Protein backbone atom coordinates (compact mmCIF):
# COMPACT_ATOMS: atom_id res chain seq x y z
CA UNK A 1 0.00 0.00 0.00
CA UNK A 2 1.45 3.33 -0.95
CA UNK A 3 1.21 6.30 1.37
CA UNK A 4 0.11 9.71 0.16
CA UNK A 5 1.35 12.28 2.67
CA UNK A 6 0.75 16.04 2.50
CA UNK A 7 3.26 18.35 4.17
CA UNK A 8 1.50 21.49 5.26
CA UNK A 9 1.60 24.30 7.83
CA UNK A 10 -0.73 27.23 7.37
CA UNK A 11 2.00 29.78 7.98
CA UNK A 12 4.55 30.30 5.24
CA UNK A 13 8.28 29.79 5.47
CA UNK A 14 8.34 27.28 8.32
CA UNK A 15 10.13 24.54 6.38
CA UNK A 16 7.58 22.54 4.36
CA UNK A 17 9.63 22.41 1.19
CA UNK A 18 12.88 21.73 3.05
CA UNK A 19 11.16 18.88 4.87
CA UNK A 20 9.58 17.44 1.71
CA UNK A 21 12.96 17.37 -0.04
CA UNK A 22 14.78 15.75 2.88
CA UNK A 23 12.12 13.22 3.81
CA UNK A 24 11.66 12.20 0.19
CA UNK A 25 15.40 11.85 -0.38
CA UNK A 26 16.00 9.98 2.88
CA UNK A 27 13.28 7.45 2.06
CA UNK A 28 14.62 6.99 -1.46
CA UNK A 29 18.04 6.29 0.07
CA UNK A 30 16.42 3.54 2.08
CA UNK A 31 15.26 1.94 -1.11
CA UNK A 32 11.68 3.21 -1.20
CA UNK A 33 10.21 4.41 -4.45
CA UNK A 34 9.30 8.04 -3.78
CA UNK A 35 7.50 10.77 -5.71
CA UNK A 36 7.66 14.31 -4.36
CA UNK A 37 4.97 16.61 -5.71
CA UNK A 38 5.22 20.39 -5.74
CA UNK A 39 1.69 21.65 -5.09
CA UNK A 40 2.79 25.26 -4.80
CA UNK A 41 1.46 26.31 -8.18
CA UNK A 42 2.85 29.62 -9.34
CA UNK A 43 5.61 29.68 -6.70
CA UNK A 44 7.44 26.46 -7.22
CA UNK A 45 10.48 25.80 -5.02
CA UNK A 46 10.88 22.09 -4.59
CA UNK A 47 12.84 21.72 -7.85
CA UNK A 48 15.37 24.24 -6.52
CA UNK A 49 15.86 22.54 -3.16
CA UNK A 50 16.43 19.26 -4.98
CA UNK A 51 18.77 20.85 -7.52
CA UNK A 52 16.57 19.65 -10.37
CA UNK A 53 15.48 23.02 -11.75
CA UNK A 54 17.36 22.62 -15.03
CA UNK A 55 15.76 19.30 -15.77
CA UNK A 56 12.14 20.43 -15.57
CA UNK A 57 10.47 20.21 -18.98
CA UNK A 58 6.82 19.47 -18.35
CA UNK A 59 4.85 20.04 -15.16
CA UNK A 60 1.71 18.73 -13.49
CA UNK A 61 -0.26 21.31 -15.47
CA UNK A 62 0.72 19.87 -18.86
CA UNK A 63 0.10 16.34 -17.61
CA UNK A 64 -3.39 17.36 -16.51
CA UNK A 65 -4.12 19.19 -19.75
CA UNK A 66 -3.14 16.06 -21.67
CA UNK A 67 -0.24 17.90 -23.32
CA UNK A 68 2.15 15.25 -22.10
CA UNK A 69 2.01 11.88 -20.38
CA UNK A 70 2.42 11.91 -16.62
CA UNK A 71 5.67 9.94 -16.91
CA UNK A 72 7.10 12.66 -19.14
CA UNK A 73 6.49 15.26 -16.44
CA UNK A 74 8.28 13.27 -13.75
CA UNK A 75 11.87 14.44 -13.27
CA UNK A 76 14.17 11.62 -12.27
CA UNK A 77 16.97 12.29 -9.81
CA UNK A 78 20.35 11.14 -11.10
CA UNK A 79 21.88 10.95 -7.63
CA UNK A 80 19.03 8.85 -6.33
CA UNK A 81 17.14 6.81 -8.94
CA UNK A 82 14.35 5.97 -6.48
CA UNK A 83 13.22 9.59 -6.37
CA UNK A 84 11.14 11.54 -8.86
CA UNK A 85 9.79 15.08 -8.76
CA UNK A 86 6.48 16.19 -10.20
CA UNK A 87 7.04 19.93 -10.68
CA UNK A 88 4.35 22.56 -10.32
CA UNK A 89 3.62 24.96 -13.14
CA UNK A 90 5.34 28.28 -12.57
CA UNK A 91 3.26 30.37 -14.95
CA UNK A 92 -0.25 29.39 -13.82
CA UNK A 93 -2.18 30.30 -10.73
CA UNK A 94 -3.35 28.07 -7.92
CA UNK A 95 -6.88 28.21 -9.31
CA UNK A 96 -5.93 26.52 -12.56
CA UNK A 97 -6.19 23.12 -10.87
CA UNK A 98 -9.00 21.53 -8.86
CA UNK A 99 -9.02 19.08 -5.92
CA UNK A 100 -10.57 16.43 -8.18
CA UNK A 101 -7.81 16.76 -10.75
CA UNK A 102 -5.26 16.53 -7.98
CA UNK A 103 -6.90 13.35 -6.68
CA UNK A 104 -6.76 11.80 -10.13
CA UNK A 105 -3.10 12.63 -10.58
CA UNK A 106 -2.07 11.43 -7.12
CA UNK A 107 -4.12 8.29 -7.60
CA UNK A 108 -1.97 7.38 -10.59
CA UNK A 109 1.27 8.13 -8.71
CA UNK A 110 0.09 6.03 -5.78
CA UNK A 111 0.00 2.96 -8.00
CA UNK A 112 3.65 3.44 -8.96
CA UNK A 113 5.38 4.63 -5.79
CA UNK A 114 5.66 3.57 -2.16
CA UNK A 115 5.48 7.16 -0.93
CA UNK A 116 3.93 10.24 -2.49
CA UNK A 117 4.81 13.47 -0.66
CA UNK A 118 2.84 16.57 -1.48
CA UNK A 119 4.50 19.90 -0.68
CA UNK A 120 1.61 22.22 0.17
CA UNK A 121 1.67 25.97 -0.37
CA UNK A 122 1.22 28.27 2.63
CA UNK A 123 -2.29 29.41 3.48
CA UNK A 124 -5.60 27.62 3.73
CA UNK A 125 -7.16 28.56 0.40
CA UNK A 126 -7.41 26.77 -2.92
CA UNK A 127 -3.77 25.70 -3.10
CA UNK A 128 -4.01 24.11 0.33
CA UNK A 129 -7.25 22.35 -0.57
CA UNK A 130 -5.68 20.96 -3.73
CA UNK A 131 -2.68 19.76 -1.77
CA UNK A 132 -4.70 17.88 0.85
CA UNK A 133 -7.36 16.52 -1.51
CA UNK A 134 -5.64 13.22 -2.22
CA UNK A 135 -3.76 12.80 1.04
CA UNK A 136 -4.51 10.10 3.56
CA UNK A 137 -1.85 11.34 5.97
CA UNK A 138 -0.54 14.75 6.90
CA UNK A 139 2.63 16.12 8.42
CA UNK A 140 1.99 19.53 9.96
CA UNK A 141 5.19 21.57 10.16
CA UNK A 142 5.55 24.37 12.67
CA UNK A 143 8.28 26.39 14.29
CA UNK A 144 8.08 27.03 18.05
CA UNK A 145 6.66 30.51 17.49
CA UNK A 146 3.26 31.94 18.30
CA UNK A 147 1.95 32.68 14.80
CA UNK A 148 3.19 29.40 13.33
CA UNK A 149 1.62 27.37 16.14
CA UNK A 150 -1.68 29.20 15.85
CA UNK A 151 -1.81 28.56 12.10
CA UNK A 152 -0.79 24.94 12.61
CA UNK A 153 -3.72 24.53 14.99
CA UNK A 154 -6.07 25.92 12.37
CA UNK A 155 -4.70 23.53 9.77
CA UNK A 156 -5.06 20.55 12.12
CA UNK A 157 -8.76 21.43 12.45
CA UNK A 158 -9.17 21.80 8.68
CA UNK A 159 -7.44 18.49 7.98
CA UNK A 160 -9.79 16.81 10.40
CA UNK A 161 -12.77 18.47 8.70
CA UNK A 162 -11.54 17.22 5.31
CA UNK A 163 -11.25 13.70 6.73
CA UNK A 164 -7.46 13.54 6.79
CA UNK A 165 -7.30 11.85 10.16
CA UNK A 166 -3.72 10.62 10.34
CA UNK A 167 -1.93 13.84 11.24
CA UNK A 168 1.51 14.19 12.80
CA UNK A 169 3.51 17.13 14.04
CA UNK A 170 7.00 18.10 12.88
CA UNK A 171 8.62 20.89 14.88
CA UNK A 172 11.27 22.74 12.87
CA UNK A 173 13.97 25.29 13.72
CA UNK A 174 14.12 24.50 17.41
CA UNK A 175 16.84 26.45 19.20
CA UNK A 176 17.80 24.48 22.31
CA UNK A 177 19.78 27.30 23.88
CA UNK A 178 16.78 29.63 23.66
CA UNK A 179 14.55 26.97 25.19
CA UNK A 180 17.06 26.54 28.01
CA UNK A 181 16.93 30.30 28.59
CA UNK A 182 13.12 30.17 28.65
CA UNK A 183 12.95 32.32 25.57
CA UNK A 184 11.42 29.76 23.26
CA UNK A 185 8.68 27.17 23.66
CA UNK A 186 10.01 23.67 24.15
CA UNK A 187 8.99 20.60 22.18
CA UNK A 188 6.73 19.59 25.08
CA UNK A 189 5.13 23.05 25.18
CA UNK A 190 4.22 22.98 21.50
CA UNK A 191 3.03 19.41 21.61
CA UNK A 192 0.89 20.05 24.66
CA UNK A 193 -0.77 22.99 22.95
CA UNK A 194 -1.40 21.32 19.60
CA UNK A 195 -2.20 17.91 21.10
CA UNK A 196 -1.37 15.78 18.06
CA UNK A 197 1.26 13.03 17.95
CA UNK A 198 4.84 14.15 17.43
CA UNK A 199 6.76 12.82 14.44
CA UNK A 200 10.02 14.63 15.02
CA UNK A 201 12.03 17.71 15.83
CA UNK A 202 14.49 19.42 13.48
CA UNK A 203 16.87 21.91 15.09
CA UNK A 204 17.70 25.25 13.56
CA UNK A 205 20.82 24.53 11.56
CA UNK A 206 22.88 26.74 9.24
CA UNK A 207 23.67 23.72 7.18
CA UNK A 208 20.08 23.78 5.90
CA UNK A 209 20.85 27.02 4.08
CA UNK A 210 24.15 25.69 2.73
CA UNK A 211 22.33 22.65 1.38
CA UNK A 212 19.70 24.80 -0.37
CA UNK A 213 22.50 26.86 -1.94
CA UNK A 214 23.80 23.67 -3.48
CA UNK A 215 20.48 22.08 -4.32
CA UNK A 216 21.50 19.04 -2.35
CA UNK A 217 19.23 17.90 0.49
CA UNK A 218 21.09 17.55 3.80
CA UNK A 219 20.42 13.84 4.04
CA UNK A 220 22.61 13.32 0.94
CA UNK A 221 25.60 15.17 2.37
CA UNK A 222 28.85 13.32 3.07
CA UNK A 223 29.48 15.41 6.16
CA UNK A 224 26.76 14.68 8.69
CA UNK A 225 24.68 17.51 10.14
CA UNK A 226 22.41 17.56 13.15
CA UNK A 227 19.38 18.52 11.03
CA UNK A 228 20.21 15.77 8.55
CA UNK A 229 20.32 13.19 11.34
CA UNK A 230 17.02 14.51 12.68
CA UNK A 231 15.43 14.06 9.23
CA UNK A 232 16.81 10.53 9.02
CA UNK A 233 15.20 9.81 12.38
CA UNK A 234 11.85 11.15 11.17
CA UNK A 235 12.00 8.80 8.22
CA UNK A 236 12.77 5.84 10.45
CA UNK A 237 9.71 6.70 12.53
CA UNK A 238 7.60 6.97 9.37
CA UNK A 239 8.76 3.45 8.57
CA UNK A 240 7.53 2.24 11.93
CA UNK A 241 10.76 2.18 13.95
CA UNK A 242 10.81 3.55 17.46
CA UNK A 243 13.54 6.17 17.51
CA UNK A 244 14.08 8.42 20.49
CA UNK A 245 14.16 12.17 19.98
CA UNK A 246 17.66 13.59 19.68
CA UNK A 247 18.73 15.19 22.92
CA UNK A 248 19.33 18.83 22.06
CA UNK A 249 19.43 19.98 25.65
CA UNK A 250 23.19 20.52 25.63
CA UNK A 251 25.62 22.92 24.03
CA UNK A 252 26.57 22.56 20.42
CA UNK A 253 30.05 21.20 21.22
CA UNK A 254 28.67 17.89 22.27
CA UNK A 255 26.43 17.77 19.18
CA UNK A 256 29.61 17.40 17.20
CA UNK A 257 30.64 14.59 19.50
CA UNK A 258 27.31 12.89 19.06
CA UNK A 259 27.39 13.25 15.31
CA UNK A 260 30.84 11.68 15.28
CA UNK A 261 29.63 8.87 17.47
CA UNK A 262 26.62 8.37 15.21
CA UNK A 263 28.90 7.88 12.22
CA UNK A 264 31.49 5.85 14.07
CA UNK A 265 33.79 8.91 14.33
CA UNK A 266 36.29 9.29 11.56
Amino acid at each position, binding site marked *: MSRVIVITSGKGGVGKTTSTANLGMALAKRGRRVAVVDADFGLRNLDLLLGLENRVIYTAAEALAGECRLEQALVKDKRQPNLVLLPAAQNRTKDSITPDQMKKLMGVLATKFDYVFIDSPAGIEMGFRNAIAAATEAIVVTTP*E*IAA*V*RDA*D*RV*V*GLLEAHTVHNTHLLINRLRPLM*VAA*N*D*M*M*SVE*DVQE*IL*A*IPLLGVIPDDERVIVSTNRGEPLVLSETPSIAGIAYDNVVRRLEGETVELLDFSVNSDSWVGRIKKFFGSK
Partner: protein
Amino acid sequence: MTIINDLLERLFPRNESHTSRDEVKLRLQQILAQDRTDLPPDKLEALRNEILSIVSQYVELDSEGLQFSLQCNQRVTSLIANLPIRRVKHDTIVSSPTPEPQPQLGNTSITDAL
Protein backbone atom coordinates in the same frame (compact mmCIF):
# COMPACT_ATOMS: atom_id res chain seq x y z
CA MET B 1 12.50 37.75 57.49
CA THR B 2 12.89 35.12 54.85
CA ILE B 3 9.44 33.79 55.61
CA ILE B 4 7.91 37.19 55.08
CA ASN B 5 9.89 37.66 51.89
CA ASP B 6 8.76 34.29 50.68
CA LEU B 7 5.18 35.18 51.41
CA LEU B 8 5.47 38.53 49.66
CA GLU B 9 7.10 36.82 46.72
CA ARG B 10 4.23 34.41 46.47
CA LEU B 11 1.55 37.05 46.81
CA PHE B 12 3.17 39.45 44.40
CA PRO B 13 5.25 37.44 41.98
CA ARG B 14 7.90 39.60 40.41
CA ASN B 15 7.61 40.24 36.73
CA GLU B 16 10.97 38.66 35.96
CA SER B 17 9.58 35.26 36.81
CA HIS B 18 7.33 35.56 33.77
CA THR B 19 9.60 34.37 31.03
CA SER B 20 8.73 35.04 27.41
CA ARG B 21 8.22 31.29 27.14
CA ASP B 22 5.51 31.35 29.85
CA GLU B 23 3.96 34.35 28.24
CA VAL B 24 3.72 32.88 24.74
CA LYS B 25 2.19 29.67 26.08
CA LEU B 26 -0.47 31.58 27.95
CA ARG B 27 -1.29 33.76 24.97
CA LEU B 28 -1.52 30.75 22.68
CA GLN B 29 -3.81 28.85 25.03
CA GLN B 30 -6.20 31.78 25.19
CA ILE B 31 -6.25 32.52 21.49
CA LEU B 32 -6.65 28.86 20.54
CA ALA B 33 -9.62 28.37 22.87
CA GLN B 34 -11.32 31.14 20.89
CA ASP B 35 -10.12 29.91 17.49
CA ARG B 36 -11.22 26.35 18.12
CA THR B 37 -14.74 27.04 19.31
CA ASP B 38 -15.52 29.61 16.68
CA LEU B 39 -18.55 30.70 18.76
CA PRO B 40 -19.06 34.46 18.68
CA PRO B 41 -19.54 36.13 22.09
CA ASP B 42 -23.17 37.13 21.38
CA LYS B 43 -24.08 33.53 20.54
CA LEU B 44 -22.42 32.34 23.74
CA GLU B 45 -24.39 34.94 25.70
CA ALA B 46 -27.66 33.84 24.07
CA LEU B 47 -26.85 30.22 24.88
CA ARG B 48 -26.13 31.14 28.47
CA ASN B 49 -29.39 33.02 28.86
CA GLU B 50 -31.45 30.26 27.38
CA ILE B 51 -29.90 27.58 29.56
CA LEU B 52 -30.41 29.72 32.64
CA SER B 53 -34.05 30.34 31.85
CA ILE B 54 -34.73 26.63 31.41
CA VAL B 55 -32.88 25.61 34.56
CA SER B 56 -34.65 28.36 36.49
CA GLN B 57 -37.99 26.75 35.78
CA TYR B 58 -36.97 23.90 38.07
CA VAL B 59 -34.62 25.41 40.60
CA GLU B 60 -33.75 28.74 42.05
CA LEU B 61 -30.17 29.55 41.18
CA ASP B 62 -27.63 31.44 43.21
CA SER B 63 -26.87 34.21 40.76
CA GLU B 64 -23.67 35.16 42.61
CA GLY B 65 -21.88 31.87 41.96
CA LEU B 66 -22.85 31.29 38.35
CA GLN B 67 -20.03 30.24 36.07
CA PHE B 68 -20.24 29.75 32.37
CA SER B 69 -17.25 29.24 30.11
CA LEU B 70 -15.68 27.37 27.21
CA GLN B 71 -12.60 25.33 27.88
CA CYS B 72 -10.27 23.56 25.54
CA ASN B 73 -8.42 20.42 26.49
CA GLN B 74 -6.71 17.97 24.14
CA ARG B 75 -8.51 19.49 21.15
CA VAL B 76 -11.93 18.94 22.71
CA THR B 77 -13.91 22.01 23.64
CA SER B 78 -16.34 21.74 26.53
CA LEU B 79 -19.00 24.03 27.80
CA ILE B 80 -18.39 24.34 31.53
CA ALA B 81 -21.35 25.56 33.54
CA ASN B 82 -21.45 25.78 37.28
CA LEU B 83 -24.93 26.67 38.45
CA PRO B 84 -25.23 26.66 42.26
CA ILE B 85 -28.79 25.80 43.37
CA ARG B 86 -30.33 27.79 46.17
CA ARG B 87 -33.52 25.78 46.41
CA VAL B 88 -35.67 23.48 44.36
CA LYS B 89 -38.95 24.86 43.13
CA HIS B 90 -41.67 22.38 44.09
CA ASP B 91 -44.58 24.69 43.54
CA THR B 92 -44.17 25.59 39.90
CA ILE B 93 -46.00 23.68 37.25
CA VAL B 94 -43.53 23.10 34.53
CA SER B 95 -45.09 23.83 31.22
CA SER B 96 -43.42 21.64 28.69
CA PRO B 97 -42.70 23.51 25.47
CA THR B 98 -44.07 20.77 23.24
CA PRO B 99 -47.38 19.10 24.06
CA GLU B 100 -47.31 15.38 24.95
CA PRO B 101 -47.66 13.44 21.75
CA GLN B 102 -51.01 11.74 21.57
CA PRO B 103 -50.56 8.03 20.94
CA GLN B 104 -52.11 7.36 17.62
CA LEU B 105 -54.35 4.40 17.19
CA GLY B 106 -53.04 1.89 14.76
CA ASN B 107 -49.49 3.14 15.11
CA THR B 108 -47.67 -0.01 16.01
CA SER B 109 -44.19 1.44 16.12
CA ILE B 110 -44.84 3.00 19.53
CA THR B 111 -45.79 -0.26 21.16
CA ASP B 112 -43.01 -2.02 19.31
CA ALA B 113 -40.50 0.33 20.79
CA LEU B 114 -41.80 -0.44 24.25
